[in-house]
């Protein structure tokens, strides 16, 4: 290697090692914390409906929530005072922005309460799923 490229080589090598350490430390910590969240959580049993309303997110639609929690969509739409025909494809956030623009997070909270109050009674063998802290999807 010609000596005139040595400073460039050195910068590149140190840069790579530095960035590598930075990435490893940053994502290593985040991966470790994410892994710790698994503690105590096992995959939910198949063919069992969800009971933890804290898993409801504002990107979900009413029919999706209805299917997930086995609660009739009419009950949810009625609680929101919204027409089920026109708005069944809209997310909770879109419904909030359209119908309750001055009440941030109102639709999400109301849907959680409505679903919680209308969950079907547990059948033998259908243990409720464990509650999780709310998390946002990774960017």
């Amino acid at each position, binding site marked *: *290697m010609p*000596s005139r490229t*040595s400073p460039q*080589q*050195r910068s*590149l*090598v*140190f*840069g*790579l*090692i*530095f*960035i*590598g*350490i*930075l*990435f*490893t*430390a*940053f*994502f*290593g910590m*985040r*991966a470790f914390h*994410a*892994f710790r*969240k*698994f503690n105590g*959580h096992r*995959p*939910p049993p*198949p063919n069992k409906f*969800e009971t*933890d309303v804290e*898993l409801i*997110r*504002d*990107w*979900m*639609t009413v*029919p*999706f929530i209805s*299917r*997930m929690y086995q609660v009739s969509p009419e009950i949810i739409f009625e609680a929101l005072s919204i027409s089920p025909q026109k708005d069944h*494809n*809209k*997310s909770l*956030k*879109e419904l909030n922005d359209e119908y309750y623009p001055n009440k941030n997070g109102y639709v999400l909270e109301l849907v959680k309460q409505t679903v919680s109050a209308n969950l079907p009674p547990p059948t033998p063998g259908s243990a409720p*799923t464990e509650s*999780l802290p709310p*998390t*946002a*999807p*990774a*960017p």
Partner: protein
Amino acid sequence: MSTFLLTQVINFGAPLVGLILFLGALGLPIGASVVLIAAGAFSQQGILNWQSTALIGFVGAILGDTLSFGMGYYAKDWAQNRFGKSAAWRNARESFMKSAGPAVFFTRWLVTAIAIPTNLIAGGSGYKFSRFMLYDISGEIVWILLYGGLGYLFGSQWELVSDFLSNFGGLILGLVIFGYGIRRALKWQRQVKTNKIGAG
């Protein structure tokens, strides 16, 4: 962006999953891995059909990879004219050719952040398309089965999986960069020693 797409996946189903994986394979930062894990969870919840979603998603990802390989291939002459005389370019090409297969395979599912540069370099370095396809298809199958499968397994708790996998991918990328840096340092030291002996 991801949350908007999740709502649309609920509404439009498998074809949209295919389109998102296609665009993701072209390098658009739209969170294709997140959507894939969510699609697995939606399949478990009965919103999507897992067979058709996996198939359409696979086709979308392969088409996107093929197109980005093609972009590298057709930019080959330009890159050769621009950087052909550079020793660094020749070294990078040679070292890529030595481990191109594993690089293509692992960037499909383990270090997804560098999948697009890998496709472009593979196309631009004259790497055989049939070989690229072999490793690409194998890697995409692992990606779809692993990410989609974990989403399916964890159902409504899929966000835990997504959070862990995205950070784990970053950790592996950091280790790859660090390892490459160390390798370059060792090579550089050897060259310095050789030069000193030659000069002495």
